[in-house]
Each structure stands twice: as structure tokens, then as C-alpha cells.
């Protein structure tokens, strides 16, 4: 019988929400626990073992010197390294701080900034090779399941290049942007959520990051027609994925 694949889960600068969603997989499919060996998972285990690991799931961004050293070390001991969730993929919401001088961020929060070690926050691929990106804040557990199954079969992970709009149309929702003139990020945002927000009468905020070939400028123009001011539009793009090449131009205006 082949040995069980070794899985490691690491947390960097983030909220643990992706690990929580990952744990929900075990509620749905308790058999998973018997099929893999959880070698490292601090939030769930006291005895954690050193690599090598078959799959390392990384939650969180890199935001300080210690983390930079650690991620390079983990990379060396991981066969497949996965950026799990927006923070690891592109910095997510906390990346909004990158538009503010670091010293200003520190001064606003801490009286004594001399003990604070922190730098501009980035996703993992800024520093190491990443084998698969799973976007979402958090990524739906079924995307994580798909990733595990594909990785264990040594197959390429399906990246969902299409927009939220595709999934929204399949659910036969009324279009919030064209019909109701609400500023929905669906046309530039990667699918995978099954159009969760628009299906509940809420505009997409872009929490799965940009789709392939996202046309941010065209959507920004459409937002003007919805009545948004320039700084409102800037905030829409400077949110979950403001650092990405697709959104950074609209995110840095003003």
C-alpha cells in the first residue's frame, strides 16, 4: 500500500479564515482524515513534524523578515506549495496598508514603533515559486477539495479563468450592474463562489481577485455611470486585490 501523502498547513500574516474553511472539509468528508497524513498543522496539532511534505498549504501574506526566511525554508521542503486564499495569493484586504507609508501605519497603531518589525505586505509568489493559487476570502471548501484531489493525482489544478458573471448567469440572477446600476465587481472578478453575493442581492466586492484578462478600466467607466465618484472607484479596486497588475492602475488613481 502506498504511504499516505504528507500535508502541511502553515499560517503567515492573515486571519486563519482559510484554515477554518479547510477544517470544514473534514466536517463534510470525515474520510479525508484517514486518507492523508497531517504532518504539520499548528492550529490543530501539538506534535508537528519537519518536512519534506507532499503538499504545503500556506495561508497568509509575507509581511516581516522572519516570515520571509520561513517561507523560503518551507519552499525547500515542499513538493507542491499552494497559496491558500487571497492573503497568500495577492495580499487581500490587509494590502490596503501598502498605500500608506509604513512608518505612518506603525505610528498610528503603536506608541513605541522601535520594536515593530514589518514591511510592505505581499503574496507568496513575490518571494518563492508557487505551484497553485487558490483565491477567495476565503476560498470555498469545494475549491480546496478540488485542489487536494488534483494535486494528489499529479494533475494540473483548474484555475477558473472566467468571471463571476458566468456563474451568476447560470443562476439566472437579474444583473445588478446593467439592470439596477449597482457597482458590481462581478465582470472583472474570478469565479468559484457560485455568484454567492449577487444571488443574495449584494454586489460582488471582488473577494476572489481578478479573472484572466480583466478589463478594469471599462468597469471603472461603468461605475461612473452608476454614479460613483473617482475616489469611490479607487476604493473598489484597492480592496481585495489592489496590488495585482490587473487592478493596480485603477487602485492607484487619486
Amino acid at each position, binding site marked *: 500500500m502506498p504511504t499516505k501523502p504528507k500535508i502541511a498547513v502553515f*499560517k*503567515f500574516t*492573515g*486571519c*486563519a*479564515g*482559510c*484554515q*477554518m*474553511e479547510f*477544517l*470544514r472539509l*473534514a*466536517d463534510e468528508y*470525515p474520510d479525508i*482524515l*484517514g486518507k492523508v497524513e*497531517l504532518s504539520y498543522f*499548528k*492550529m*490543530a*496539532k*501539538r*506534535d*508537528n513534524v519537519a518536512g519534506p511534505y507532499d503538499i504545503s498549504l500556506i495561508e497568509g501574506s509575507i*509581511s*516581516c523578515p522572519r*516570515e520571509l526566511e520561513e517561507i523560503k525554508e518551507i519552499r525547500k521542503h515542499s513538493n507542491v506549495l499552494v497559496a491558500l486564499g487571497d492573503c497568500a495569493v495577492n495580499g*487581500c*484586504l*490587509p494590502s*490596503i*496598508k501598502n*498605500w*500608506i507609508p509604513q512608518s*505612518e*501605519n*506603525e505610528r*498610528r*497603531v*503603536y506608541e*513605541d514603533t522601535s*520594536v*515593530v*518589525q*514589518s514591511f510592505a*505586505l505581499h503574496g507568496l509568489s513575490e518571494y518563492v515559486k508557487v505551484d497553485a493559487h487558490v483565491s477567495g*476570502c*476565503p476560498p*470555498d471548501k469545494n475549491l480546496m477539495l478540488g485542489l487536494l484531489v488534483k494535486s494528489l493525482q499529479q494533475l494540473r489544478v483548474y484555475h477558473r479563468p472566467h468571471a463571476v458573471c458566468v456563474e451568476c448567469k447560470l443562476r439566472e440572477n437579474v444583473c445588478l450592474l446593467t439592470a439596477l446600476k449597482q457597482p458590481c465587481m462581478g465582470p472583472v472578478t474570478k469565479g468559484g463562489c457560485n455568484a*454567492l*453575493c449577487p*444571488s*443574495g*442581492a*449584494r454586489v460582488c*466586492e471582488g*473577494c476572489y481577485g481578478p479573472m484572466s484578462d480583466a478589463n478594469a478600466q471599462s468597469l471603472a467607466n461603468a461605475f461612473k455611470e452608476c454614479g460613483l465618484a473617482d475616489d469611490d472607484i479607487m*476604493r473598489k479596486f484597492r*480592496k481585495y486585490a489592489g496590488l495585482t497588475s490587473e487592478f493596480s492602475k485603477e487602485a492607484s488613481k487619486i
Partner: protein
Amino acid sequence: MSPIKTINVDYIARVEGQGAIDIRFDKTTREVKLKMFEPPRFFESFLIGRKYSEVHEITSRICGICPVAHQITALRAVENAIGLKISPQTEDLRKLMALSAYISSHALSLYFLTAPDFLGKESVIPLVAEAPQVVARAMKLKKLGNELGDIIGGRAIHPVYMVVNGFTNIPSRKQLDDIRTRLLEVKQDVRETAQLFAGLKYPQFNSPGEQIAISDSQQYAINKGMLKSTEGLSAEEKDYRKVINEKQTAYSYTKESTVKGRASFMVGPLPRVNINFEQLSANAKSVAKEIGFKPPRVTNPFDQVIARAIELVHSVDESISLIEKLPLRYEDLGHSFRPGEGFALTEAPRGLLYHSYQINKQGLVERADIVPPTAHNVHHIEKNLSDLVQTFGDLPADELTLKCEMLVRAYDPCISCSVH
């Protein structure tokens, strides 16, 4: 002179986030540091300049274990700032949302994070084979809490349907009826959970201190109430900063809280159950009696675990009664706006949570102030650890280290949250 002993845990397991324990002690002196080395994300800085309507969506990301509490607290602080009063239905739906988070979070903390220590295991994983019924019960409860959150909030982790002045989507009667049936089915499971956790062998030691929770004579306070303590403290949420101090330490990114003019204090399930015992559901009170829990219990911090199990019983009961009375009407989300300053105190699963915002004429945040439960607790956990090593200082190092970790886990700390 007696030799100096040290306890070092460089990365505490089975808690959320990155923290370390560093203790040096001998017969007479004790130096205790709980070092939260989790990197700061500077939420209170980058919230400045953001729109009032997205504050709850942003602060949700402070914590993946208690996003619901951050959303509700931010919404209430913002609504207080801009002068909005929400509908009774929104209040009920938010309470149900908060209860869903109590159920999933408490089940996770009790069974997955706390229990393994008491059963001599490093995690819940070996228990899958050894105690399958117990693990199945744990998963059933956690799943039920998560799915109640999915139905009302769109998703349990970083919900999407809660917004300023209400909900963009209302669950269907059928969805709620189905989950009500499942809640009724777990009433026996939560009772057995309380019995199981009341029967564990907790380290016996004395480490008393002030306990703080919000309180409301009409209901078991979760989303709103007056600040109360076991030492007679009483304040409105807008006066929070007049009674609670916060101070940075050189060794941790989490600031430490104290009651002004007094000392460290405890927040969480135990203070809530002690202070608001009368408002618990009749069933939860009778379970408390059954397992021999008589309030107030203020000396052993491990009672946090038993109180958490009692709250699990209450959360299921109150969810059922809320579902039975919900009208489920679509309500208009349109609202008035005025600039201003707002404050909110709530009870996250792990304890007292504070948000405050100044919103300007353009509807943008000018000032943000956030104090999560674990930031309230961290200084008190250090005091408890100091008392713990005094009581058990003669134990072998590995046993004492495990006891220190168990004490930290009894608080179910959320470290990302506490640093934010």
C-alpha cells in the same frame, strides 16, 4: 538561592495565531511573558479613509474564527456613529448569526482544541478511531453552527449578507424550519457535551481576578449591553475608554488591558455565565445545576471550559426560540446619514469585543479603535500562568509546560485577532 527554572513554548499549538510562552521563575520571583509574535496588519491605520459601509466587511478579516462578531460590532459602532436605529428583525437575525458562531466556535474549541490534552492526545485525529461517537458529535455540532451561519449570512466565514441597516438576503422559511429540526436534534448532544467537559480532571489552583462582560436584563447579552464586572464595574459602551486602559509591551504585538486604577481582568464564557446566569435559557440553567456549576465561580480559570459548554446548551436553545419568532420580511436598506462618533461593545465567542469609529461628512473613517477579546485577556492569562507555576512549580518540566499550554487553551485565544 533556589535555581531558576524556565518554561519555553516557542509556538503554542491548538490555538488560533502565533504566540509563545516564556516563563522564568524560582521560589520567590516569577517573570511571565505571553509573546504574541503574530505580525500586525495595522487595521486601525488602513481603515482610515475607507467608507462607513465597508467597515464591517474589512474588519471581518481581522479574524477568521470570529468574523461574525467583528462584523456585528463594526456595524453597530458605525450605525451608532451615523445615527441609525435598526429594525427588530435585523436585531434578531444578527443575534441568530452570533449564536451560530457561538455554536461552531465553542464546539471547535471544546472538542478539537481543549479535549485532546485531557485525554492524553496531541490532537483530535487519534480520537477519530478511538472515540468515533464523540468525534462525530463534535463534527455534527460544528457543522450545524457553520450551516446556520451559511443560511443567514450567505457563508459562515466572512459572511456577505449582513450590511449597514439590515440583510440583503433573508433566509426562506423552509431553510429555517429544516435547521430548527436539526437544532432540536442536538439538544441531547449539547447536554452530553456539558456533562463530558464537567467531568474532566482540571488542574486545581487559585488565580482569582475581576471578570467583565456586557449585561442586559432582557436577554443573555451578546450583541449589546452595559459593561459589568464581578467587582462592581458598570459603564455604558460609549464610556469604555474611561474605564479600560491599554498599553503596549516591548515583547508582544498584542497590547495589554487593565481596568483603570485596578488590575488585569478576564473576559469570555466564564465571566458571561457568572454575570448573566439568570438570563441563560431554563434548560442551560438546569444543565448547569446537573453538572454542579453554581455561579459565581471566580478562582479557577479552567472554569472557562465548563462555562463554554454551558453556553453551547444556551446557544442551541436560544437559536430555536429565535427561529420560531422570526417574521422574515424583506426590509428596505435605505438609510439616513450624519457624521459622528460611534462605539459598540459585544460578546464574541471568546469574550468582550470593542469597536469605535469617527465618521466624517464624506462618510469616511477618520479614526478607528478596536480591542478584541484576547487583547483583553492577555495580561490576565500572564497573571494566571504566574499563579499556575507557583502552585505546580515542582512538577517535571514537560508536565508543567503542558499545564501552561492547557491554561492558555482554556481561554481559546485568538491571536491574529488580538494583534490585528
